């Protein structure tokens, strides 16, 4: 017989290291032709941080995304940006890049103010143009400013770094471990075959509060990939040990989900902007995985009326639990 059930999992996740400093640095150079180079130590491992950091710099400088080039993760030329871990790169390195861009902008504004004879605070930089907020006719192109800078020997180079505001935990675990938190709720529907113990995931809905999605497609990619890794965690993945020896040390017996094992994931992006984040952003890499396994476990319990306390929930465990539950029911009837 096949039984269906639904389950929810909610989670919170602190962005960055726990109550420890974890700074990130960046350099931003604006070149004579108004293109931009970012130097960041941030290692992109596929999640798309390079793209996101370029977006942040482009937005801050008001230049086209395609005019940005990113040099990353080379200790010979890039500043330390800490680890690509703890879902911290958008929030922490994003802030560092934004600050570096702001610092480059200061030089531009200073030069612009000098050339236009207006105070810096009166200027805005938009579409490669510096304008006075008070009188829109007072303007100068970024290109001209760059040329003037070149003439008098000024380089437009900014640096920035960011370290989230935290407070280490005391002996009772009290403190401010993280500057900000990501949140999520996922819902999963499963179908369980009560005779073979097989579990089918039918639907997944995953809503994540990421602060601000700098790149929604990349955020969805994280949510989808994380959910599937979470599904593997719930149902099939397990390093099996025999006195410290891994007995499934190949891809033929350590099984991760294939395309046939999971449904398409429905992701929902929630944006509760974080004031300390770059343009309101927090993070999503790890949160994407955290609630999935528990939502699946809750869905299985909902389907069968039996709770599972051990991961992964394999077909064998399902059948054993059903058998135990049946025996218990029989005993109850006997009395």
């Amino acid at each position, binding site marked *: 017989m096949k039984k269906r059930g639904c389950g929810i999992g909610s989670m919170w996740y602190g962005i960055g290291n726990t109550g420890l400093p974890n700074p990130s640095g960046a350099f931003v150079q604006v070149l004579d032709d108004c293109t931009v180079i970012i130097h960041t130590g941030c290692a*992109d491992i596929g999640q798309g941080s390079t793209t996101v950091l370029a977006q942040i710099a482009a937005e801050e400088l008001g230049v086209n995304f395609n005019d940005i080039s990113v040099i990353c993760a080379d200790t010979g030329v890039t500043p330390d940006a800490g680890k690509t871990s703890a879902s911290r790169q958008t929030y922490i390195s994003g802030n560092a890049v934004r600050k570096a861009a702001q610092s480059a902008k200061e030089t531009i504004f200073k030069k612009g103010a000098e050339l236009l004879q207006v105070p810096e605070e009166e200027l805005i930089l938009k579409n490669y143009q510096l304008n006075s907020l008070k009188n829109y006719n007072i303007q100068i192109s970024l290109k001209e400013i760059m040329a003037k800078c070149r003439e008098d020997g000024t380089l437009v180079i900014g640096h920035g770094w960011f370290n989230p505001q935290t407070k280490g935990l005391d002996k009772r675990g009290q403190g401010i471990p993280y500057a900000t938190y990501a949140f999520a709720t996922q819902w999963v529907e499963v179908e369980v075959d009560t005779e073979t113990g097989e579990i089918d995931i039918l639907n997944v809905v995953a809503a994540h509060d990421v602060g601000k999605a700098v790149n929604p497609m990349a955020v969805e990619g994280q949510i989808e990939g994380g959910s599937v890794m979470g599904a593997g965690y719930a149902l099939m993945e*397990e390093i099996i040990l025999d006195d410290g020896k891994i007995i499934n040390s190949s891809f033929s017996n350590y099984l991760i989900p294939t395309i046939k094992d999971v449904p398409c994931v429905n992701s929902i992006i929630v944006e509760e902007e974080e004031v300390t984040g770059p343009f309101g952003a927090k993070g999503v890499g790890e949160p994407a995985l955290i609630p999935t*396994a528990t939502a699946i476990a809750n869905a299985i319990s909902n389907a069968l009326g039996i709770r599972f306390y051990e991961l992964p929930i394999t077909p064998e465990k399902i059948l054993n639990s059903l058998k135990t539950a049946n025996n218990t029911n029989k005993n109850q009837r006997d009395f």
Partner: protein
Amino acid sequence: MSHKVIGCSVEQINGSKKVTGKSKFTDDLKMQGMLIAKVLRSNIPHARIKKIDISIAEKIPGVIAVLTAKDIQGENSVGIIIKDEPVLTDEKIRRIGEPIALIAAETEEQADMALAAIDVKLEEIQGVFDPEEALQPSATLVHKGGNLLVHKKLRRGDAETAFKEAIVTAESNYITQMVEHAYIEPEAGIAYCDQDKVILLVSTQDPHYDREEIARVLGIGQHKVRVIQQPTGGGFGGKLDISVQCHVALLARATGRPVKLTYTRQESIIASPKRHPYKIYYKSAAGEDGKLLGVKVKIICDTGAYASYGPAVVTRALVHATGPYSIPNVHVDAYGVFTNNPVCGAMRGFGVPQMAFAHESQMDILAEKLNISPWEIRRRNFLTPGAITGTGQKLGQSVGILETLNKVQSYVKEQGWGN
């Protein structure tokens, strides 16, 4: 505020290189005169090394270098938080996969032959494989300082009283398994020397950390080490620890030639850190209104043979034990324990997925006892802007947990899914 490019789904920078196969991952690179490296690893979990004889291996044609611990000029240790893991061991083996010797040879076949020719004499020691057993006073010691890596506490309010006042309680034990990251690109690195500098091309999640460790192990300044991350085929936390970095750097310095080390899939699974398996003892107390009054939690994390990210994983588990809920009384103990199992380190979520399994199961159990829906019990307890967390932190305004639940519920309803 309207943005020009923030909030836009621009295509991935370098994406066109990836779809055309032009992206050069580390193993795709070749250099003039490059040697192939292999690592001799232990295949028993706990032993004392009596003798390592490399004399035959060294003589195999094509073998350019065979290195053991005594060839390390700097410090023979690495570790993200605690420097407790030898780069090459010559004293004690604490896990299967422990590196003992390095080979650099002209070809892979020659390197394999040299591996087989190294003679290691061992004295086996009884291993300990269960973290709770490892905490017993009679347990074999994995490290001199004892098997307890770390014990962290979280105390807020008075959990005992909360349980006395509770209308419903739930008490359960949860077990989670050890998990592999399974990035599709196995670990790989190339090192070469450029005058007095060592340069690394490597698949990594943090080149700056790699630089620090390589410099310490080689006994040179950090300014003499340059680490360049190559396109990296996934990491998920598994490429935070040192894998090939120090090994290829040592061999490049010893041979003066470029050296490449790429793990096989088996080696990757055997040698790389894993997700910590947990045992969680979880008690929750709620009032008639369905509001959580307190939780009492004990967490035991098996960190395996070395600390790696263990202390951080334990602390994260501690802080996140409550889940995204306002709970006035919190009492959590989290232990990280050494065993002779594979090393556990960082993996996507840092100990929080394990805790979520426990706290979210608890919420459903309480909901059932209180006869309210799983949606409702969460709604009644969620953290809100300005709420105080278990660590006493006052949250800011960006707390979207309720919104995520509401959005999910309406989506499910719109689709007509579920029961």
